[in-house]
């Protein structure tokens, strides 16, 4: 299985190197294997991300939104190598600004032919990209019910029963 891991790693890192610059509109990114050690005989995986115009730095120096975008890029790189029939993302758009929410949505639009997406979100821009919206309400305190939802123009998301 080591051979399979190495093959998959090579494919995922190829995807990562092309996907991240598209998400960040420039810059570069790379996956690297760490040196095996006594404690961890199997090599681990390091992420290196360089947003456009910046120096290549350790991922901890990235901002909250840049980290979330890089993480989405990493997950999707795995996804593109081994698509799974469905993908569930719970408020991954919370740290993203409006520009990055659109980029995240474009990524979904490119992958949706192979997989189904279930997105939990508070962000109106993300809601606008959904084909179907389900509302969950707790009109009776402590009891969840589902309702069907239609996005109305500028007012809040309308919950219909």
């Amino acid at each position, binding site marked *: 299985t080591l051979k399979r*891991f190495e*093959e*998959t790693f090579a494919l*995922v890192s190829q995807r990562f190197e092309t996907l991240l610059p598209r998400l960040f509109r420039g810059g570069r990114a790379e996956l690297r294997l*760490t040196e095996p050690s006594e404690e*961890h005989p*199997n*090599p*681990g*995986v390091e*992420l290196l991300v360089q947003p456009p115009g910046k120096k290549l730095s350790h*991922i901890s120096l990235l901002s909250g939104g840049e*980290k*979330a975008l*890089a*993480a*989405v890029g*990493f*997950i999707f790189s*795995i*996804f593109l*190598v*081994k*698509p*799974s*029939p*469905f*993908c*569930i993302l*719970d*408020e*991954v758009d919370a740290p993203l600004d409006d520009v990055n929410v659109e980029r995240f949505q474009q990524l*979904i639009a490119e992958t949706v032919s192979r*997989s*189904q*997406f*279930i*997105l*939990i*979100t*508070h962000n109106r821009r993300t*809601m606008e*990209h*959904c*084909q*179907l*919206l*389900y*509302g*969950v*309400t*707790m009109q009776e*305190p*402590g*009891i*969840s019910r*589902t309702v069907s*939802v239609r996005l109305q123009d500028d007012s809040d*998301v309308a*919950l219909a029963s």
Partner: protein
Amino acid sequence: MKIKRLELMGFKSFVDPTVVNFDASIIGIVGPNGCGKSNVVDAIRWVMGEQSAKSLRGHAMEDVIFNGSDSRPPLGMAEVALTFSTEDGIVPPEYAGFSEITITRRLYRSGESEYLINKTACRLRDIVELFLGTGVGHRAYSVIEQGRIDFAINAKPEDRRLLIEEAA
């Protein structure tokens, strides 16, 4: 193996029988804080075989059973059923003849569990094996829980390796 339908009863805050149809490719789940959105994700992971109560935000597995509210008493059982469509051809050979597959999981306060595939009793192993190799599974890279998107970034290198091993 796209998701067609989810049915919940007595699972966390979904005390009454609830059906959610997933008839589209991009589905949004919205609602106020605390209304039960992440509980839907927990339900999907649970029926697919999740065994860790902590990763379902509880202390004991019993925490998934509706534990009461001001107006309703606690229930004695939680049940979730998840129906997949087999149109995309990703289906284990023994289920090739079916147009859809339904997996069901029940937990009683007594601690007893039941698992079913297409209404026939089976073991947890059978459910986990159903998903082997498809890229989905209760811990797979295809389900990102709330607050866990940073996991891939803040994780140790050997934990990130696990994500790639799943896809291998």
